[in-house]
Structure formats: C-alpha cells, structure tokens
C-alpha cells in the first residue's frame, strides 16, 4: 500500500542533476502539480526526457523557462520558441529523437533489451555516429536504451496498490515510462481503494509505482 504524498514532498525526493522521464504530449497527460512543485523548489541541472518541451508556460516547458533544465531528450520543440532559441544559442543541450524511436528506446530500458533496431532515421542526421546492424540484408540503426532516475507520470485514476489507469490521449508515454526509471512517481486525479479497478482496466501494474500523488488535502 502506498499513501499519497503532497507534491512538495515528492519534489523534495528529486536531487539536482537528476534524469527525469516525464509523461505527456503537449502537456496532455503530464504531472502538472508535480512539475509546479519542482519549479517552486528550484532544483537545477535537470535532464528532461519527454515527448516534447510543450510551451514555455505549460508542462515541462515551465522548467525550461525557469532555467532548471540543462539537457533534454525530446522529439519536438516546435511550440517552445524559448527552447529553440536556447538550443541554437548553445545554452541548452537538446537531443532530438524521432518520436517512435524515443518511446522504443525508453521501452528497451524498461524491458531489459539491449537497444532498438529501427529503420527510422536512416539517411538523416539521426544516423550520425550510430552503429548500423544488418539483419537479413536490411540495414537498421542501433538506438540505445534510455533510463531515468525518476519517472514522473500522470494518470486519471490509481488505487493505493499503485495500479494506474489513463484517460484517452493522456496515455501517451506514461505506461512505457513506468518501467524505465529507478523511482516512479504517479500523480493521479483520483485514488480509489484497492480492488476498485478491474484487473483488465489496469494499464500500469502497481508493482511498478513507488509513490502516488493525490489531489486531496493529504
């Protein structure tokens, strides 16, 4: 059983220079209260791995705007002009990764695989410096696993065993990131007693989740 934490208590767990996997796609399915708590705490030197850097006012974009992110591994920064400016100026290290490759690299870490063999990125700058592996005469890029110190997830509902369920397009990277970090923190809109979520509706098994964040007064 996992008691629900306050956002500030969760933010305190995260040290400077931590590597964070953060769920969400343009902010949908991101743990907004936890992100705000990290912003208020001011933890610096963070590496953020996320689908995108959202906008400067929202989601992980807020941590870019506050200068707390020194490095990002993302697929898209098109709606965050500030991040683009920092990248071009060399003020922030940003590795751009094709979205499908990004999710598979995170999955590879979570599933104990040595890497991902993909045709995506062949013949493009994504190929630079990477090993090519031939399988049955076809060429594939070898992309390496991405593991995080923390996974910061958002979900629609959870139970106190840590089982998680997601709503509509708020799934995105969350179910995959749940396997790929040393410590997994999930922010839930609702936390229900154990036994209230049917086994077939559980998208992330509770054994993967270390800490829950509730919405109540705690």
């Amino acid at each position, binding site marked *: 059983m996992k008691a629900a934490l306050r956002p500030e208590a969760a933010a305190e767990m995260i040290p400077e220079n931590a590597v964070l996997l953060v769920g969400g*796609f*343009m*902010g*949908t*399915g991101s743990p907004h209260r936890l992100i705000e708590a990290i912003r208020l705490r001011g933890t610096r030197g963070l590496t953020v791995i996320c*689908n*995108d850097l*959202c906008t400067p006012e929202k989601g992980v974009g807020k941590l870019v705007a506050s200068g707390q992110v020194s490095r990002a591994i*993302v*697929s*898209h*920064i*098109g*709606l965050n002009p500030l991040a*683009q400016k920092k*990248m*071009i100026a060399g003020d922030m290290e*940003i590795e*751009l990764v*094709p*979205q*499908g*490759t990004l*999710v*598979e690299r995170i*999955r590879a870490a979570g599933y104990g695989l040595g890497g991902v063999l*993909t*045709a*995506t*990125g*062949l*013949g*493009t*700058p*994504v190929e630079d410096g990477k090993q090519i592996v031939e399988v049955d005469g076809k060429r594939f890029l070898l992309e390496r696993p991405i593991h995080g110190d923390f996974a910061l997830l958002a979900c*629609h509902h959870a139970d106190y065993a840590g089982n998680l369920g*997601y*709503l*509509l*397009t*708020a*799934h*995105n*990277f*969350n*179910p*995959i990131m749940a396997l790929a970090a040393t410590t997994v923190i999930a922010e839930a809109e609702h936390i229900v007693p154990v036994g209230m979520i049917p086994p077939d509706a559980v*998208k992330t098994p509770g054994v993967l989740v270390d800490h829950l964040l509730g919405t109540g007064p705690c």
Partner: protein
Amino acid sequence: MLDAKEIIARRVAREIRPGTLVNLGIGLPSFVANHVPEEIGVFFQAENGVIGLGARPPEGMAEPSLTDAGGGFVTAVPGAASIDSAMSFGLIRGGHLDMTVLGGLQVDEKGHLANWMVPGKMVPGMGGAMDLVAGARSVVVAMLHTAKGEPKILPECTLPLTAERRVDLIVTELAVIRPTDAGLELLERGPEVSVEQILAATAARLIVKDDIPEMQLD
C-alpha cells in the same frame, strides 16, 4: 475562388480510400479531414494516442485529455481506441498505417522530403515525421508550392532529410506531382493554372507528358 490551402486539402482528400487508417500531420494536412465523407469509414490516427479522431468539439464540450498531436481539443468517433505512444508508433512503423499526409519544407527530384529543421534558424524537431515517412504505406506531402516566392520543389534538398524513403505524392495548390524512378512526374494542374506557371514555380526538373488535366475537387 478557393484559397491555396483549401485546394490542397480538397485534392488530398480524394486520395483517401475507404476503410483505411490515415495519419494527418498538424497544420495544413489536418484540414484534409474536413473533406473526407464520413460514410467511407476512414479512421484517422493522431499519433499522440487515438485512432478514430473526430472533429473539434462544440463550444463548452472540450475534454482536456482528448487532444490531437498539436495539443488542440478534439473529439473521437464511435469505435475509437485509446492507444499509448508505443502502440501508436507500432502502427506507424509496422506498416499498419495506410497513408500519412505531411507538410513539407522541401522535396527534391528523388522524392526526398525535408520537413523538420532549418539549421541555425528553426528547429521544431521531427516529432513523428521520420517514423511516418519511414513506415507508412503511402506518404503524401501537402504543402504550398513556394515559400515567399521561392520554389520548395528542388533538384536536391538543401535542408536535412526526414527519411531516405521516396514519398509517393506531392500535392500543392499548383500541381499534383508523383516522384518516380525517372524523376518528378507532373500529373495534374491546379484550378486555372497553366503548365508554364507550374514550371516557373518549380526549381526541380518536371517530367511533363502531353495534356496535363486540371485537378478534380469535390
């Protein structure tokens, strides 16, 4: 008189076959859905996590956890499915997506697409574009024929490529063009556009056979 984007969206819509799975990029390509009749049973995928993407919600009926790849509010059709990012890109990379419609910065005589960065100026990132071009069964580029008067269809892309795969069709407000082994074949003229106008706006060599028909638009 239709504006340029309307022409492109209507013409691309005619490429969409009944009962297929189609991904529409954000921006111009997303307008295509407005011109696909509901009764042909096409499922639109938004790569952030829904199959069966619907129209924008009516005023006051938006749900924050139902968004498209641009982060905008959408609806879903009956029979829709929520998917996580791994499944979403499994569909794209595993050859299950019948067609993708993407915007373009440049296309060249080999049918190579560049659409994810302008070095030193604009670095939106590839998002899902590299996966889509590498994996979709059919790739349609929907873009304005020129940018600030400069041709976007070139002998060779000067911007970093999105994939080494040749795209299947280019649709602009001036022309429909098919990349082939022999080069770029001009298939159709835009409404009231002459072949001479197309050639003048195109830097790449075009293969022009007799009697280029005008686009049919619904």
